């Protein structure tokens, strides 16, 4: 095979792996949007916050150390212990559940029945707040996150493809693990929503709030539940991205990349989020490789996803798998 084709295949594969990570963030959006009709802009910052908290707990950092030092003139920074990864993940999950509860208790409960744009703005406010909180609690410097996931080039794929084509594909072990974890996560979510009582309640709420209320499902509990699940998904996404490129503010910008993913897949569809993520991940890498870098001066990944989604929506306004939009006067 000619080199160009091999490169293109490698780029495609890597794009698919990146797409999995976009899909993970998009998944959190879809869950909340389905259950409560809220377009949760804060999802990306939740991933950042979860990753920051995880690193902070693992390293035994003192929360708000900087603030405490300034106010009381002390000099604390670390407790002096390290926490094993699994325990730290569990503790972070507790924090995320607490966050979900607080959001529902303090914000969403007071905004019931508002128009969607107001709720959307509230989640932007939430994103700002959470970003500031994360920086205050754990400091704004770039942190390394290492929960023991394998990293680096996958030797087996490299040597196999080298034997077959005379050119070894570079595929990161981390991406493969991310794909596996994403698959497990999605399967788990599907099983949860199909076979458990709470999962069924979740789907009922997504279908019709009032009907769900009338059969005795507690809306506020379901919302806390769904925000907790979204927090969990954010944590997983945060771990993956954090392990890949360090825990830093740009992590929250992946949330914006998840938006075109959502548009492609449709706001209400879990399979849509996955397929959309794969298409965007693959599309932007291929476009950069075939058109962007040679002809347009590179860095087309910044906007390609949005323009693709825009063009796509002109032909299919509800996305790939979204519910058909029916409008009545």
């Amino acid at each position, binding site marked *: 095979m000619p080199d160009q084709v091999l490169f293109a295949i490698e780029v495609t594969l890597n794009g698919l792996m990146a797409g999995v990570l976009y899909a993970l963030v998009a998944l959190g959006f879809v869950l909340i949007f389905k259950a409560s009709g809220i*377009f949760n802009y804060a999802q990306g910052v939740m991933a950042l916050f979860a990753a920051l908290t995880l690193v902070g707990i693992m390293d035994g950092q003192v929360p708000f150390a900087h603030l405490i030092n*300034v106010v009381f003139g002390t000099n604390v920074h670390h407790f002096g212990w390290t926490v094993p990864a699994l325990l730290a993940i569990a503790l972070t999950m507790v924090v995320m559940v607490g966050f979900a509860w607080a959001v529902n208790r303090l914000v969403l409960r007071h905004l019931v029945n508002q128009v969607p744009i107001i709720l959307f703005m509230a989640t932007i406010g*939430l994103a700002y707040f959470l970003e*500031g909180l994360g920086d205050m609690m754990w400091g704004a410097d770039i942190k390394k996150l290492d929960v023991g996931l394998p990293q680096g080039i996958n030797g087996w794929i490299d040597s196999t493809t080298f034997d077959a084509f005379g050119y070894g594909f570079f595929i990161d072990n981390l991406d493969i693990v991310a794909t596996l974890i994403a698959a497990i996560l999605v399967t788990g979510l599907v099983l949860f929503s199909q076979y458990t009582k709470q999962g069924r309640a979740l789907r009922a709420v997504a279908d019709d709030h009032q009907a769900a209320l009338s059969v005795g499902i507690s809306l506020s509990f379901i919302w806390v539940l769904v925000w907790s699940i979204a927090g969990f998904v954010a944590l997983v996404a945060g771990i993956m991205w954090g392990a890949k490129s360090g825990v830093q503010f740009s992590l929250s910008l992946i949330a914006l990349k998840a938006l075109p993913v959502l*548009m492609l897949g449709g*706001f209400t569809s879990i399979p849509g989020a996955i397929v959309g993520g794969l298409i965007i991940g693959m599309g932007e890498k291929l476009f950069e490789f075939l058109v962007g870098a040679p002809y347009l*001066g590179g860095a087309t990944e910044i906007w390609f996803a949005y323009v693709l989604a*825009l063009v796509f929506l*002109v032909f299919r306004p509800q996305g790939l798998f979204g519910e058909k939009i029916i409008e009545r006067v």
Partner: protein
Amino acid sequence: MLYREAGDFKTSYAQDNQTFPLKLDRFGYYCILGVAVFVIPFVINDYWVNAVFLPFLIYAIAAIGLNILVGYCGQLSLGTGGFMAVGAYACYKLMTAFPEISILVHVLLAGGITAAVGVVFGLPSLRIKGFYLAVATLAAQFFLVWLFNRVAWFYNYSASGQISAPERAVLGVNITGANVEPWAAYLFCLAFLVASAWIARNLTRGATGRRWMAIRDMDIAAEIIGVNPLRAKLSAFAVSSFFVGIAGALFFAVYLGAVEVGEAFGIQKSFLVLFMVIIGGLGSIFGSFAGAAFMVLLPVFLKNALVGGLGWPTDLATHLEIMIVGALIIIFLIVEPHGFAQLWRITKEKLRLWPFPH
């Protein structure tokens, strides 16, 4: 007692339809305008102009523009930063290509060019609605910023990739460049703001504005009663982008002087202006002013209080500032989702009966 409409008689439709039908409101408006034109320029210094007045005036123009699109026509847009960049770069190219023409013309033309770009990116709004449209406008934001970053023609092949405003004068007084008197820059922006508000107010209460509002309230119903959605939506995009483009041109030429596109016109700017519009009040010109004032003054106030008053390090103060801004936005939305404009309306209602509400 103080705020009365009793005894304020109108004898013609024209009088009844004026922007400030009450004598007291009219008087207040002329007072504020008089103070803004004849008093403030003589008392302000460099710090006040650069920290408070210029950002307020310029953001108020941008907020009026976005309010026309979001508040009056109901088309949610997150591309404001990108459109401001169009205004800035158009102004820069015009200033350097035609140095002999007045900068007034350049700023207006920059607005016109932005309007054309806005119409192009507004075309999808005919098919895409609501949040889908909001995300679609993000395409404008990212694409435009990328374009100005990558295509060297836009920044005249300068080595740094920045654009910086050359020295230009109006009526013999420097407006842009290094040697600008604070009052001159202030008056220049004030003139644009007053004109923008006047145009926007009169557009929104006329037939055009009613078409926009019909589209906002329900586009299908509006179509049935004879509003052409193509013309209404695209005209909203054009007018809105015109104002946003002017704001971008002023932001670059008068306020900052030198601009790096990703930093000055990034996605954060889009959100900032959207916050102004929402906190000020959707569908209200007064709200655009109030929102812009609030979002400009809040960081200045917090910074002075935390860094100056408590002696905190700046990075910590910045983090707390982000938290406070976020929390305030949420609190505002909970307390009064319709923003300052609604608060002002309620206050006026109360004042009419005060101090004898029964």
